[in-house]
């Protein structure tokens, strides 16, 4: 008697697909594309934090690595669009191997060690001019083309981002329902019991970092084409913190939550622009208030509200106790 | 003095106490015995306010304690020495004792009582600058008692004071309990070591899976087969 969990997702997808048909404003399309890219980032973070419980503040670094690798390949060697995205993802994944020694750290120690990684990567981007253009940034990233057709128009690029987001979403969904995803959840909920079931912690965690880094790298590649100019100041550790907020705000552990969280974190400051001086204050207050939603997140609250609103059968109770259902 | 009526406590889905009745009169020492998980510690925690009752009432000197915070209950003279001693490992012995006399009713006379503690446990005086965590198990138990003395209880709740201690230390425990009794302190004692508990007490309650199954004079209980059964299995007893 429950609403099929796929239905809200399907509706959301249709709306996302329709956005450029309804909204032609370049600014909004630009910001929505940015939100889609952020959603990819947040999905990677959800794998780390929501599924495996690994509080990593290194995602911003992988995002930067992906962006610079994709951007540099496109700008300097004319590598085609999709290949540069793949290269960005792979480079980030390769860089994640550097984190293997620290995956055994927990909680705060892991967070701060990965924060340190973010800072180091930022400094490399800033200081290695020969590689990244240094503080003056990486310019002249060409417009993206797909099989010889330009996909640089705001609406087309938006759809490209959306397709990649959907692919990543489906991938994460499949992972979460696989042996690997179960192992990560098990690690998250009880490491000792996971070991007692034969799960190798360091191995699984390293793989988790690798997949999340790849995702962030692809998002970085998209960002390179979205902005077409990369500057070190877009890849500070603040980025990592923002990604963490995205994953939590929508609903920890929920894939839809990650997407919604990314939209909130990207769109809210833009919507709040009209409030002028108070903009960031309101944003900060909103973040604090949303945290009161607990682990339900926005998606959990929304489905709760929906369930209440429509008096949907008897499912309300199940929605509360199982926010995961709602994603 | 203490009157417990139909007290129930649940931890999530698990019912730890299923409606127990219990009374302790002023100056008495009463033992609560029973095997692991019978609900002994939970009873003490409910009295001292650490866990909220899901039903029933706890009355102390005519006042209902339900809903009071632990720190308010301490102010009424109920002092709970928890299982596992729970001394503060990164405070010195002297600081631990100081914390014992934190409540307003105990703070006034803390210097004098501290001397009494040191007189009773000279080892503590020797080690008064050491961190609590660096003491041996026996010394920690002494410190826990000293801390309770500092609190100057009218009703003392003791949870497994002999647990994990060598027999020679158990004698120290007995000495400390005797001290409290001589001071006229009422004691509710939880012990797995039933013989010890019943030797020290006048009356006892036997708990099993959250219910009082038996209550009587300690002298009677000490030979009662049901007590034995609650430890080593009832069914087996029948065919012995």
């Amino acid at each position, binding site marked *: 008697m429950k609403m099929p969990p796929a239905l809200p997702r399907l509706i959301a997808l249709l709306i996302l697909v329709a956005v450029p048909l309804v909204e032609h404003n370049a600014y909004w399309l630009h910001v929505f594309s940015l939100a889609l890219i952020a959603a990819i980032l947040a999905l990677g973070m959800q794998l780390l934090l929501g599924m495996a419980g690994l*509080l990593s503040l290194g995602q911003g670094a992988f995002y930067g690595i992906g962006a610079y690798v994709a951007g540099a390949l496109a700008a300097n060697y004319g590598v085609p669009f999709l290949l540069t995205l793949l290269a960005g993802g792979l480079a980030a994944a390769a860089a994640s191997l550097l984190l293997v020694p620290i995956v055994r750290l927990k909680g705060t*120690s892991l967070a701060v*060690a990965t924060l340190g990684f973010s800072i180091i990567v930022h400094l490399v981007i800033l200081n290695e001019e020969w590689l990244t253009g240094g503080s003056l940034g990486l310019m002249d990233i060409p417009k993206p083309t797909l099989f010889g057709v330009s996909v640089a128009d705001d609406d087309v690029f938006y759809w490209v981002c959306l397709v990649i987001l959907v692919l990543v979403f489906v991938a994460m969904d499949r992972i979460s329902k696989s042996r690997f995803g179960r192992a990560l959840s098990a690690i998250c909920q009880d490491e000792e019991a996971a070991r007692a079931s034969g799960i190798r912690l360091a191995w699984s965690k390293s793989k988790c970092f690798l997949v999340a880094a790849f995702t962030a790298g692809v998002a970085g590649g998209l960002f390179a084409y979205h902005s077409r100019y990369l500057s070190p100041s877009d890849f500070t550790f603040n980025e990592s913190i923002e990604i963490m907020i995205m994953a*939590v*705000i929508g609903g920890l552990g929920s894939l839809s939550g990650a997407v919604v969280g990314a939209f909130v974190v990207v769109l809210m400051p833009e919507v709040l622009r009209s409030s002028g001086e108070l903009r960031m204050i309101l944003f900060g207050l909103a973040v604090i208030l949303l945290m*009161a939603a*607990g682990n339900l997140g926005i998606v959990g609250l929304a489905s709760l509200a929906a369930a209440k609103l429509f008096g949907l059968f008897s499912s309300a109770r199940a929605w509360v106790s199982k926010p995961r259902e709602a994603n | 003095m203490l009157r417990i009526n139909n007290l129930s406590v649940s931890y999530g889905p698990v019912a730890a106490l299923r409606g127990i009745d219990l009374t302790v009169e002023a100056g008495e020492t009463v033992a609560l015995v029973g095997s692991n998980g019978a609900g002994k510690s939970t009873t003490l925690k409910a009295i001292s306010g650490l866990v909220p009752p899901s039903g029933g009432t706890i009355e102390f000197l005519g006042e209902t304690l339900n809903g009071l915070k632990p720190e308010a209950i301490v102010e009424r003279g109920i002092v709970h020495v928890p299982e596992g001693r729970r001394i503060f490992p990164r405070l010195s012995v002297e600081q631990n004792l100081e914390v*014992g006399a934190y409540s307003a009713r105990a*703070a006034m006379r803390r210097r004098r009582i501290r001397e009494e503690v040191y007189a009773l446990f000279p080892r503590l005086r020797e080690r008064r600058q050491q961190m609590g965590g660096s003491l041996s198990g026996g010394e920690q138990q002494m410190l826990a008692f000293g*801390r309770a003395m500092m609190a100057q209880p009218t009703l003392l709740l003791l949870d497994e004071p002999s647990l994990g201690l060598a027999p020679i230390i158990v004698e120290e425990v007995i000495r400390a309990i005797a001290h409290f009794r001589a001071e006229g302190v009422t004691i509710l004692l939880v012990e797995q070591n039933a013989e010890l508990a019943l030797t020290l007490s006048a009356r006892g309650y036997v708990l099993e899976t959250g219910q009082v199954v038996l209550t009587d004079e300690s002298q009677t209980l000490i030979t009662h087969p049901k007590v034995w059964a609650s430890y080593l299995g009832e069914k087996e007893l029948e065919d012995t």
Partner: protein
Amino acid sequence: MIYDQFLQTLLGGLAIGCIYSLIALGISMIVRATDILHFAQGEVMMVGAMTGFSSGVWAGNAPLLALIGGTFGGGLMAVAVELGVYRPLRARRVPLINVVIATIGVSIVLQNVARLVWGSEPLAYPALFETRGLVISGFTVSPQLATIVVLSVLIMAALAVFFRYSRAGIAMQAAAQDPDAARLMGISVERATVNTFAVSGMMAGAAGVLLGSLFFASFNMGFITGIKAFVAAVLGGLGSVPGAMVGGLLFGVIETFSAMFISTSYKDAVGMVVLILILLVAPMGLFGRAGRQV
């Protein structure tokens, strides 16, 4: 000449390190008492610097009043966020990560409110100390840095005395080490937590005044400094008071010496590499203990 440089670098590192220590102490105390990673501690420091500035200026450039004003400003701000934000969140039993993110929200709000209240321009503190270098038996010593080290040491000593002898200080430690046992001793854990925030805010506020007098006060001075202090606290062992002191000093000295001898471009990276190496050997930091952790 080279000794002179070495000593100057060391003194500079120690002075910065002292300021990190003061902030890190607060971060550590808060973690110990509540498990919260307080990302807004740097902003509390900033508020201290600002209120210190305002009270100092109001009182006609009085350094002592600036210090007092900053200390209390920081303390009050920390108590305000505890009572206004963290306690209500804890009461709702939200997961710890939510509270941690709320601290980031607090940091954003404080920074931007301070920008509106005190403006976006940096504020120059009145010269609290002599700024010219003093040459003592061939060594150039900055009285300003020396004063900061001395003041910080005094503040930390006062904190040690407070924790060691005062009933409130002992109660705060007891509540942090074993909240249930502390309750059984009649300690209100809620009040002890507020006290913890107050003391940690006061330390941060004092650090803000010292930092402000050494450099200047501005609405954005807290974030980076706060993050560095955070790293220092983890380096020393989150939750350990001596760890926070040593971690802060160590981090400050590493920072200045790596700028001196390794690379100014990568000086922050050196600190991070040291941090990661230390965590690999001692996952809980130098003075860390297993135990209450996130």
